[in-house]
């Protein structure tokens, strides 16, 4: 693979996707310290919000230690060079929260929908563009459809005003060829000036290689997390990805050693559990299940005495998508009842 001379923009997820791994309990001090460290390491984009985006605070997804507004206002003044982004999932977050984030000084809004439902993002993409923000359309669970459907949905978001489209492997299910196929097709279908991004999860340990495949296919924005802190087995571990790209001659503008120090000295000590491909995280990647279901499935196992792996496989079989955390407890109860009947 020859990526020599390519320029890409790295986007850190540890303070948003990492919120899943931290059950949304990252403190303001930790947010500030990690964001400042990333900024000093030259990471050009940093996402900050509840793991499920603006207004994700809920029984369903978990109540965070602080509101989105508290996090954004705390972090913003400490970040000198990097852009700050906020995620918004239509159906959870609404335009008023988007306006709040803009008021807090975010530079980028990423509007995320399931990969077949882009037409729910019109209000939010329109508003973000109207506010003059860098506006990303983020197609989640993109392994569930082929390139043609992704093209159609990407064009919808581009038509609403998104200046960048992401193909998102929310389940960490894609193989490198899956990434290549989808990214190449979407790249070709979009206007040349529209940027293309890839967001991976490391459930099959393919975060780094999939991100390289994405760059080769024409992506110029790549998501990852310092120390991989993110849902499931985490996101593409950013310091590893940056090391590899540096070896390959890709320009990221990131200071590798500083980023390694952020990961090792700031993020790893924060972790409640190691970010690794454990049995359940592997099941996510193997069965194509939304990565943030991980800790919920483990809790369901504790409460209902059913196997978290079986619950995750069943959720995948039923075609559950991002945001359906409520169905984890529902499926666990159903399985527990069925087991009770058998005994």
């Amino acid at each position: 693979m020859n990526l020599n001379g390519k320029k890409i923009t790295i986007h850190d997820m540890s303070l948003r996707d990492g919120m899943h791994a931290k059950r949304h309990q990252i403190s303001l001090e930790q947010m500030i310290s990690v964001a400042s460290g990333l900024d000093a390491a030259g990471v050009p984009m940093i996402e900050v919000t509840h793991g499920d985006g603006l207004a994700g605070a809920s029984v369903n997804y978990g109540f965070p230690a602080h509101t989105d507004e508290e996090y954004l206002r705390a972090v913003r003044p400490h970040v000198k060079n990097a852009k700050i982004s906020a995620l918004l999932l239509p159906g959870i977050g609404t335009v008023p929260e988007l306006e709040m984030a803009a008021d807090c000084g975010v530079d980028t809004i990423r509007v995320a929908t399931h990969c077949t439902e882009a037409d729910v993002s019109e209000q939010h993409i329109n508003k973000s563009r109207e506010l003059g923000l860098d506006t990303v359309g983020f197609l989640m669970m993109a392994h569930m459809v082929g390139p043609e459907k992704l093209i159609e949905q990407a064009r919808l978001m581009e038509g609403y005003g998104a200046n960048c489209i992401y193909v998102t492997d929310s389940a960490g299910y894609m193989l490198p060829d899956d990434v290549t196929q989808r990214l190449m097709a979407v790249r070709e279908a979009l206007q040349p000036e529209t940027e293309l991004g890839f967001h991976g999860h490391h459930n099959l340990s393919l975060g780094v290689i999939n991100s390289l495949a994405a760059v080769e296919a024409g992506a110029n924005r790549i998501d990852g997390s310092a120390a991989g802190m993110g849902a499931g087995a985490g996101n593409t571990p950013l310091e590893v990805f940056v090391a590899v790209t540096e070896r390959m001659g890709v320009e990221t503008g990131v200071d590798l050693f500083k980023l390694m120090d952020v990961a090792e000295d700031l993020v790893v000590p924060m972790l409640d559990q190691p970010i690794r491909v454990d049995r359940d995280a592997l099941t996510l990647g193997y069965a194509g299940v939304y990565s943030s279901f991980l800790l919920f499935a483990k809790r369901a196992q504790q409460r209902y005495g059913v196997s978290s792996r079986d619950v995750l496989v069943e959720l995948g079989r039923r075609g559950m998508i991002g945001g359906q955390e409520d169905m984890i407890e529902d499926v666990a109860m159903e399985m527990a009842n069925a087991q009770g009947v058998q005994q």
Partner: protein
Amino acid sequence: MSKINAALIGSGNIGTDLLYKALRSDWINPVWMVGIDADSEGLARARKLGLKTTHEGVDGMVPHMQEDKVQICFDATSAYVHGENNRKVQAQGSIMIDLTPAAVGPFCVPPVNLKDHVGKGELNVNMVTCGGQATIPMVAAVSRVQPVSYGEIVATVSSKSAGPGTRKNIDEFTQTTAGAVEKVGGAKQGKAIIILNPAEPPLMMRDTVHCMTEDEPNQAAITESIQEMIREVQKYVPGYRLKNGPVFDGNRVTVFMEVEGLGDYLPKYAGNLDIMTAAGLRTAEMFAEEIINGTLVLQPEVA
């Protein structure tokens, strides 16, 4: 028995499903369907069933409302155009049952507060959203037992059953539903989440309701109240079922509902259509009864 003539504004999923239910009503006689697309399937079905139709929006029907004695209109378009539709039909002396999330008029969730709307002379009532109709009875079932500090609902509908209006109005959906979880459901704070799931074959509508009670939940009383409320909803939506729960976890009370439709327009998975249209029709029938009894007198504005 005489019936009140009604018009269906909007020829999409909701309007067409409502048409079939209205044709079975003892109180409502659907005479008009209004669309904006000449090729709309809903309009074609309505014509076949003997209704008058127009594809020129409400303006195409307004000149005929007096001679056709249209006294009840259902708006199944979108929150964005509801205001105009409402003004135009009210000027013709019709009341408006609003099935968009515009929330211009007071909220109506029939098993919870239909009787509060009797005798008020209201000319516009809002049916909240499909997610609201499916979940607010459960919030109310808990809050009538003991105070609920927070009510949260997650409505999951199949992608196929969510038309362009719902998709364009997704913010209005969450905002209106959350507002009604408070105002009608009785939660001090409300939150609503909607998920569109594209699985094939399509998933049946699912609704998860989380209530946080202020004090320790009275499990027996809440369980009984929930069962009783489910029976109330089943009177007009027979496929409204408790799938799991109630779960009691500290002060959290969670119920997992499933809503199967009658399959009047879209197949039975689209319980979200039924719960909305059946609630809208139930509300309209209450007003029709008032009009027929002479307790509600409607008059067109003098031009």
